[in-house]
């Protein structure tokens, strides 16, 4: 039998059994669309997070106290030493590195903030003027912290927009004073709503100079030091220099961890890729269900067309030709279903993209290919059994219409 004739005959019987065909088509289409949409969401989430990180700049290094690696036994453990704190002195020393563009030390804590009668516990970040640029923040009103020496204590603060609306409502905030802990600060600026940063809700933040924060929380140590390198190529050099300078200042102990944005990004990438794979797996279940439906419906079709199978045999059809005919129907259906599913999935993606413009939805190619391959393969696998059952029918019995 010619391939063209095979497809023609298969198409003809699919078109004739319209309801049955449409049902099977829908089942497969739902499965494929589910894979496309779910993996698009996972991939969209991954791209969103990646985008957020990249917005922060890939030239960012984060220095935190303590070592995260646990290779070998540190001599310090025997001596009962704890990792030395990071200090403002350390931060200042890092500025000596030529390829360093900016340094923002970070002290983080939580304190009650009040204005007049209203009071609220908020996260307080102590930093310097560079934080604005390093973290890509933008101001809604007023100014950010003024530039100056790190150890200069100033009673000024910048507040998040939500803090502003809760403490000041409609009164002007810039120029007013707030009480943070037991000290008074003058509000010099309000962050804009649109600023974004991973890990902080900027709208709920109060930012004060780093040395004020150290006094407020009664600590010498820094939570982090953010370093912006001059460009991405300088990153490895900066990283080595940071290690060397800190080691020098900490009596030869390399007791800090330097994280690059890339490393964080890679971790998030892994997490979200795993998420996407999980979603793809879940969606594939619906493809398997569609496959079983195909088998079921094809079995019914074989039963209904028993006499026809008998006739084909009487006309000289070989068993393999009858298998091919029924298999072609199943495969055509699942392929058409896959196509419909792709259209449907992409349409759904388009709608999601419209509703959530921030989420960069887009099905990963591997998921699309996988969905189509699984759909067509399930047509083959689940179509084979009914097709072979048809091919094995005894022509005499089949012609008589008995089973």
């Amino acid at each position, binding site marked *: *039998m*010619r391939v063209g*004739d095979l497809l023609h*005959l298969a198409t*003809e*019987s699919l078109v*004739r059994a319209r309801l049955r065909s449409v049902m099977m088509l829908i089942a497969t289409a739902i499965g494929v669309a589910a894979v496309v949409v779910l993996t698009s969401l996972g991939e969209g989430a991954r791209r969103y997070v990646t985008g957020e990180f990249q917005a922060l700049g890939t030239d960012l290094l984060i220095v935190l106290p303590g070592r995260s690696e646990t290779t070998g036994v540190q001599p310090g453990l025997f001596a009962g030493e704890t990792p030395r704190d990071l200090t403002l002195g350390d931060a200042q020393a890092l500025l000596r590195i030529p390829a360093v563009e900016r340094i923002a030390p970070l002290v983080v804590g939580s304190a009650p903030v009040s204005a007049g009668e209203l009071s609220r516990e908020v996260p307080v970040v102590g930093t310097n003027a560079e934080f604005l640029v390093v973290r890509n923040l933008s101001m809604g009103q007023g100014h950010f912290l003024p530039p100056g020496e790190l150890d200069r204590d100033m009673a000024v603060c910048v507040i998040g927009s939500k803090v502003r609306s809760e403490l000041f409502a409609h009164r002007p905030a810039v120029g007013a004073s707030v009480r943070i802990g037991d000290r008074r600060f003058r509000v010099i600026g309000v962050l804009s709503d649109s600023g974004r940063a991973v890990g902080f809700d900027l709208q709920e933040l109060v930012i004060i100079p780093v040395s004020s924060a150290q006094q407020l929380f009664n600590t010498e140590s820094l939570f982090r030091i953010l370093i912006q390198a001059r460009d991405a190529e300088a990153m490895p050099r900066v990283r080595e220099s940071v290690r060397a300078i800190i080691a020098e200042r900490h009596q030869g102990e390399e007791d800090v961890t330097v994280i690059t944005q890339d490393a964080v990004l890679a971790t998030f990438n892994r997490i979200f890729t795993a998420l996407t794979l999980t979603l793809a797996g879940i969606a594939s279940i619906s493809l398997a269900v569609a496959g079983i439906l195909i088998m079921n419906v094809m079995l019914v079709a074989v039963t209904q067309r028993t*006499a*026809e199978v*008998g*006739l*084909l*045999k*009487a*006309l*000289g*059809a*070989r*068993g*393999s*030709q009858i298998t091919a005919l029924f298999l072609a129907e199943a495969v055509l259906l699942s392929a058409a279903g896959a196509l419909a599913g792709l259209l449907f999935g992409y349409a759904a993606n388009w709608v999601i993209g419209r509703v959530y413009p921030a989420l960069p939805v887009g099905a990963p190619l591997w998921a699309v290919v996988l969905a189509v391959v699984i759909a067509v393969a399930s047509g083959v696998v689940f179509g084979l059994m009914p097709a072979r059952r048809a091919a094995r029918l005894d*022509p*005499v019995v089949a*012609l008589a219409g008995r089973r």
Partner: protein
Amino acid sequence: MIELRGVSRHFQVGDQLVRALDEVAITIEGGEYVSIMGPSGSGKSTLLNVIGLLDRPTAGQYVLDGRETTSLNDDELAHVRARKIGFIFQSFHLVPRLTAFENVELPMVLAAIAPAERRERTQAVLASLNLTDRGHHRPDQLSGGQRQRVAIARAMVMQPTVLLADEPTGNLDHVSGAEVLAALEALNVRGITLLVVTHDEEVAARSRRHIRMRDGRVVTDERAGGAPA
């Protein structure tokens, strides 16, 4: 030429052995016109199925045109069936979703004959059965007699040497039945071997050789005019 030598076909139904054919020996020369009669269950349809290679004898030998068939596998049987044998059924067995033209074309599709040649041969055979203007009709748009003539066209399109008709007029009125028989006999005149299984004495009377069966055995086998075959 059809030669059956000691052909038996036994079925096991429950704990009972049904002898649908029991030691049947018949020789039918090319171009003969044979009717096979007998009560229900006498084995006449089984005989037709065995001759048409749809059913395999449990014992005995069947030689078709000089070729022993009982040792052929299923695919070889299908090949012989496609080229040497045409079937006509009581209930026509047209594929309902295909047009008359496509139904007639079907055996050639299975045999992978090129579309151009198929079209030519289909048109020729439809014309010979006065069905040219019915080519694009589906079976449910045709009368019984027309359907059976489409079935004859389909059986003929591969130019077989043997035509097997199982109650070809059983579902037809008298006029249509006569048309169908005339069409079959016209083919016989042109040299095809024609075997007709029937209940109808009137139909059987038209053949030149009459085989009567009972309980899986041939009871009588006579040429027209009463001479033994």
